[in-house]
């Protein structure tokens, strides 16, 4: 299993959508961590575990730009089948990411 801990591997305080918006953006997370790890998991045909513990919050623009983009790129079913979320501190974070993967576009929500 391939693992990502957002707090450990990226930041405890995720930011907004794009790099030009400021630090710790969803775009940076997507390009530097999420997409490479997802492809690594795909290649090895194993699950990708995303640990959402240790965060101050999980802003929707961050989620949209990372998990939403991944869903648009790879397909919601593919992503849902591959990713396992760990969110003991606050289960809402995992629900939020799953909802974003299911409906990444604004009009669908």
């Amino acid at each position, binding site marked *: 299993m391939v693992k990502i801990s957002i707090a450990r591997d990226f*930041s*405890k*305080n*995720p*930011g*907004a*959508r*794009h790099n030009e*918006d*400021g*630090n*710790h*953006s969803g775009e940076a997370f997507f390009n530097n961590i999420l997409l490479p790890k997802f492809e690594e998991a795909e290649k090895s045909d194993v699950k990708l575990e995303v640990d959402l513990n240790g*965060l*101050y*919050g*999980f*802003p*929707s*623009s*961050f989620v*949209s*730009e990372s998990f*939403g*983009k991944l869903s*648009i790129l790879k397909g919601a079913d593919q992503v849902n089948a591959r990713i396992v979320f760990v969110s003991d*501190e*606050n289960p*809402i*974070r995992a629900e939020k990411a799953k909802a974003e993967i299911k409906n*990444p*576009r*604004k*009009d669908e*929500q």
Partner: protein
Amino acid sequence: MRRKTNKLLGKIRTAYQYKRRSKKWRRRKGHRAAERAAKSLYDRHLREQEALNQQISWSQVRDQRNKIPKDLAAPQVFSFVHNTDEVLEYWEQVGRLFEQKENVFLNIDNVTQLTSDAVALMIANLKNPEFSNGCFFVGRAPRDRALAKVFTQSGFYKYVWSRGQFSVGQGNILHRETNHKVVPEIAVSTYQVGEKHTFGEALHFDELYEIMIECMSNTHNHASLNTKDPCRWWIYTYPAENNVTCYSFFDLGVGIFQSMRTKDFFTKFLRTVKYYRNIDFVPDLLAGRIQSRIDKDNEIRGKGIPEIVKHSKNDLFRAFYLITNDVKINLKTGEPEQLKHNFRGTFFYWEIEARV
């Protein structure tokens, strides 16, 4: 003869050394150091003003400074959230005087109510060079001791020149973001103030952090119609009584409705002829149906405001308001209110409290 002179000099030196140890001497020297520091701060303030008004000469700045300020008394209830129209009217009057190149005495001596949001708006307006128009302003803290404490401990004096030295109260964070960006570190600092003051323990209050990030992001992307000059935002965290923490987050951009892009020609026309008022678009705004001016990723954008609205319903938020242009919205209830005066900007205000 020489011996006598040395003896005399020795006496003078001893007397001087003795004086140097006295409280009076130290106090006087201390005052002089403080005066020098204040003068240098004041000079810097003048230089800043001068830089802002490069088109006018130093003598004009001096003449402007020497004008007697016009006294303008603030509304007794000096609270932007609870007395929005009167406060907006007050700032309109101040703005008109600045436009006429008058200096202003911002008289808040006799206010009976002063809230953190009004203090934050005051400093933001005064530090806005477009608003102050190269004019000078004076003022002092309210007479009421409790209100004076709110005012002096806010951090207001960090941004203005003052003879007095005022320390910022514990937990008060008054921050102006000059890089115009989303700064998660500031969101964390202000989050921690609320967490410590209101709850007294670490908890996972994601909504509070997420609201701040969405507010910053919203300002960064939408506050200014000119994309080359995104406006700056302010945040003020004030730990109030009864473990309530008050947050004010705002920008002095153009306001949400002013920056809104109307989708179809017919609606645009009806807005122009004032058939549609801004308040009519509130449901669309709260549901995230207002189209963003940012073209990039438009299909997945527009989730910020709905997220703020959704989070505002959380019981830990005691109050939650959004004031933009001529509309004030109570986000807890969803009720909009038509304002008589226009606010150029977007102001979010919320309070958190612990529920037993």
